[in-house]
């Protein structure tokens, strides 16, 4: 083993130890007389000190040494842990951690000056003049790790045996008495048998603790991944063998394949477990975080954790660590009020933060709840308007829950003062981005005066999951069992009266409640030959699914079987297809896609996607051929005519004060999110060319009030379309059409009993850029330029 290997091992081990120190110190602060914990803290520091001395890291050794001295006093009961001591000791842990970092990066300790820390540590270890007697008399705890405590020791502490009795018994043993210490003591009447049994248990426990490190080994994650993949293959091969076995009538073969089945299942569970880590691993540091932040802003906050043992894949654990830390800090800093305010509000002085983790619907839910003041919807609404994040129109129509979720937008912070923790408006959006990166969602709920709950939902990506295999349009699809609620089969003669229509949308009465139906073949735009499912003469298979708390029925051609499938992620490029969560290889070796129930539900508008996440996947052109229901944004064009665009082409709705509009050439522009956003005036594009040129060159009148802008993305370019008034967002079928009567309009359609013109966005862009960006020589120059 080379030197650098030794250093590397030292680093890894020390980081782990330091994390444990954090936890133990915070725990000790609450319960300063926990001798076991003190002894463990002492051992940890002692180990670090010893190893750095051996490796020649002198500065590190010096810091660890004074820390150790202080801890010796604590351990021996000469001092009692108080908040000041805790803070200093935590400071020492941080200093050690920084030095380790430095060593990791450069191999050197660096030029740190820790004299202040060292002197504080030195000062604090001065024993107060009147030492607390009760503490001084406490017995010493053996400092060696891994060695079981002598039973005599335990009996002295727990069963009130005197030292003399123990010594006598030990003397007898030495003189050749073959009996155990406990037996001798019981015989002498010094102790009850039950006490000995208890002491033996304690001894056993301390021994187990000592050897825990010997029974674990470090394994490279890459190797685990490889093993995981191989097990995945094995599962597939097993599935194939099982299928084969069901054809063969050879009982010997069937027996063997069943054994193979059992072993594979167990192996798979075992290997899966190696990659899983309880979420407690990252929560472990939160008591420290909470303490630091709480002390920093003069609050007292307790933390409770539920579901620490909830397991997550290692990669996911790592990915959510930072977002969770931020959420926790945020809750303490913003969520929980100052102690005096809490008392005024009739609450306990110290706030409470509850972390909760559990599995639900194939996802891991993590909730961070505080019992603080809750979010102020009015203030967020005001702030959002001020920042121009939403328009007044939107603000008036937003539900409280939508308002709360505005806090996840970039640049948004309602904290009145900026602290070093939060209030700078960075953070919540980063939390959201990071969680979404791994396919999760963040949601916030709050009750004024009672607290706020942030819920993070994370999917299980890497997994072997049970799934229901269905057929639709000739291909098989797997539906994760977790989203599945029940299966309903309507016989041919029941279809007619079973499936009813609500204004064109099919629904099914499931035990008296209406269940919206989604036809898989229509959602996936599969070949038309599967339309048989809608005919009245064949049975209909309805799979009742749950997505985001809503139920809906998925109609498929055929329901096959349930199977354990290995989830293989889709390639990056295919991930844009939100309807699929992954792919898997079936028992016969063919590939099947795994349906993403949530994505499917969103696509089918069973649940509405949040506005800013709408992907501009449908252009106006494809809307022409699209016979299904679409969501449109309605607005007034010039002369109060009703116009619409598909909502999917819209990036945002904005409102700018007229003063923010500037001229660039003859083009209206505005500064928007650090970019220059060209503004195209709908009235100008649609009007006669002569009038248009006149109006183009002038800025809007300053007193004309804010201008309403639809921010659109087309082929990677953003631009704003200035409209007169935004009317509504409606879902409608765009099937009653007539040809366009003017250019820049695709067609006219009836939406909500009014003839509405569907805008042709590419055409508008063409028109606008021809006249604005590249002025044609044939044009007459503007007549009036004010």
């Amino acid at each position, binding site marked *: 083993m080379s030197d650098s290997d030794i250093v590397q091992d030292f680093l890894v081990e020390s980081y782990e130890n330091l994390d444990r120190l954090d936890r133990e110190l915070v725990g000790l602060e609450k319960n300063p007389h926990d001798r076991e914990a003190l002894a463990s803290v002492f051992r940890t520091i002692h180990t670090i000190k010893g190893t750095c001395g051996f490796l020649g890291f002198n500065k590190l050794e010096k810091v660890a040494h004074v820390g150790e001295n202080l801890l010796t006093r604590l351990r021996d009961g000469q001092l009692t842990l108080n908040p000041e001591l805790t803070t200093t000791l935590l400071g020492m842990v941080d200093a050690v951690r920084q030095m380790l970092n430095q060593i990791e990066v450069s191999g050197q300790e660096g030029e740190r000056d820790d004299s202040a820390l060292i002197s504080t540590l030195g000062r604090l270890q001065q024993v107060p003049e009147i030492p607390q007697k009760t503490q001084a008399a406490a017995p010493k705890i053996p400092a060696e790790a891994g060695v079981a405590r002598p039973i005599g020791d335990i009996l002295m502490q727990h069963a009130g045996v005197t030292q003399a009795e123990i010594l006598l018994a030990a003397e007898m043993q030495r003189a050749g008495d073959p009996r155990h210490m406990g037996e001798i003591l019981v015989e002498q009447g010094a102790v009850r048998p039950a006490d000995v049994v208890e002491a033996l248990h304690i001894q056993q426990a301390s021994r187990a603790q000592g050897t825990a490190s010997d029974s674990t080994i470090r394994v490279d994650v890459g190797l685990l991944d490889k093993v995981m993949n191989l097990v*995945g*293959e094995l599962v*597939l091969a097993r599935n194939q063998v099982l299928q084969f076995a069901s054809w063969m009538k050879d009982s010997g073969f069937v027996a063997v394949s069943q054994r193979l089945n059992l072993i594979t299942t167990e192996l798979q569970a075992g290997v899966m477990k190696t990659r899983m880590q309880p979420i407690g691993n990252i929560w472990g540091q939160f008591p420290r975080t909470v303490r630091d932040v709480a002390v920093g802003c003069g609050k007292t906050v307790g933390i409770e954790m539920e579901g620490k043992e909830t397991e997550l894949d290692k990669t996911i654990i790592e990915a959510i660590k930072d977002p969770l830390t931020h959420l926790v800090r945020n809750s303490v800093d913003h969520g929980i009020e100052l102690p005096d305010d809490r008392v005024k509000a009739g609450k306990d002085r110290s706030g409470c933060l509850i972390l909760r983790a559990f599995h639900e619907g194939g996802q891991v839910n993590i909730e961070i709840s505080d019992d603080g003041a809750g979010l102020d919807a009015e203030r967020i609404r005001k702030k959002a308007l001020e920042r121009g994040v939403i328009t007044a129109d939107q603000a008036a129509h937003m539900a409280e829950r939508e308002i709360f979720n505005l806090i996840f937008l970039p640049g948004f912070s309602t904290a009145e003062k900026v602290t070093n923790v939060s209030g700078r408006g960075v953070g919540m959006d980063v939390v959201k981005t990071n969680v979404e990166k791994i396919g999760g969602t963040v949601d916030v709920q709050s009750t004024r005066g009672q607290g706020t709950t942030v819920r993070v939902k994370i999917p299980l990506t890497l997994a072997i999951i049970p799934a229901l295999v269905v057929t639709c*349009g000739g*291909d*098989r699809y797997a539906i994760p069992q977790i989203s599945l609620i029940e299966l309903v089969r309507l016989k041919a003669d029941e279809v007619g009266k079973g499936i009813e229509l609500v204004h064109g949308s099919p629904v099914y009465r499931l035990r008296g409640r209406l269940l919206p139906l989604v036809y898989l073949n229509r959602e*996936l*735009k*599969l070949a038309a030959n599967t339309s048989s499912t809608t005919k009245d003469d064949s049975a209909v298979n309805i799979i009742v699914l749950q997505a985001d708390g809503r139920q809906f029925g998925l109609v498929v051609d055929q329901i096959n079987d349930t199977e354990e499938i290995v989830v*293989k992620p889709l*390639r*990056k*490029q*295919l991930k*844009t*297809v939100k*309807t*699929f969560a992954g*792919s*898997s*290889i079936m028992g016969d*070796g*063919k*590939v*099947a*896609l795994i349906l993403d129930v949530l994505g499917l539900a969103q696509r089918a508008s069973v649940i509405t996607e949040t506005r800013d996440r709408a*992907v*501009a*996947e449908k*252009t106006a052109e*494809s809307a022409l051929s699209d016979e299904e229901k679409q969501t449109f944004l309605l607005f007034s064009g010039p002369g109060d005519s009703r116009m619409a665009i598909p909502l999917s082409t819209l990036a945002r709705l904005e409102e700018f004060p007229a003063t923010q509009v500037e001229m660039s050439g003859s083009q209206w522009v505005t500064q928007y999110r650090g970019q220059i956003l060209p503004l195209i005036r709908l009235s100008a594009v649609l009007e006669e060319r002569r009038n248009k040129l006149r109006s183009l060159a002038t800025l809007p009148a300053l007193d004309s009030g804010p201008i309403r802008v639809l921010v659109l*993305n087309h*082929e*990677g370019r953003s631009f704003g379309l200035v409209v007169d008034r935004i009317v509504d967002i409606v879902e409608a079928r765009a099937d009653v059409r007539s040809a366009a009567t003017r250019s820049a309009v695709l067609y006219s359609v009836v939406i909500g009993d009014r003839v509405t013109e569907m805008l042709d966005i590419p055409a508008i862009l063409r028109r606008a850029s021809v006249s604005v960006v590249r002025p044609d020589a044939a044009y007459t120059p503007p007549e009036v330029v004010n």
Partner: protein
Amino acid sequence: MPQTSQFCTFYLDKLLFGVELKGVQEVIRSLDMTKVPLAPEVVSGLINLRGQIVTAVDLRTRLALVSRPADTLAMNVVVRSDDGAVSLLVDEIGDVVEVDENSFEPPPETLRGSVREMILGVHKLHDRLMHVLDIEKACQMADVTGTAAPAR
């Protein structure tokens, strides 16, 4: 001594194409394919390559050629791209040819559009021209027509 390199060649609509041999993992016959609904048009489907799920890209579609007659089976040229293995669907496999750099010429100016990005140039073989395909570009599944969802 001019440098030589080896190319795996194949035909698409009677045109000869080549990709650098070192980027090719294997060449296999037509496999069962699972279609991916709603995916970009160039994605023909997913194939199971010995337990590995590989996306198949129809090069005819990618290169804006007429689509393959329904009765002919495509061959898979499995190439290694930055994002894992991708199978390129081609009409027919040709020989492995060794060419030197002197026979190379960049594509003519008249070759336009998205296809130009994918074709690095041509090698002048003695009887015909071999189009050199950029593997990375060819494997990108963004729709040539640009209707795929834009990357954020």
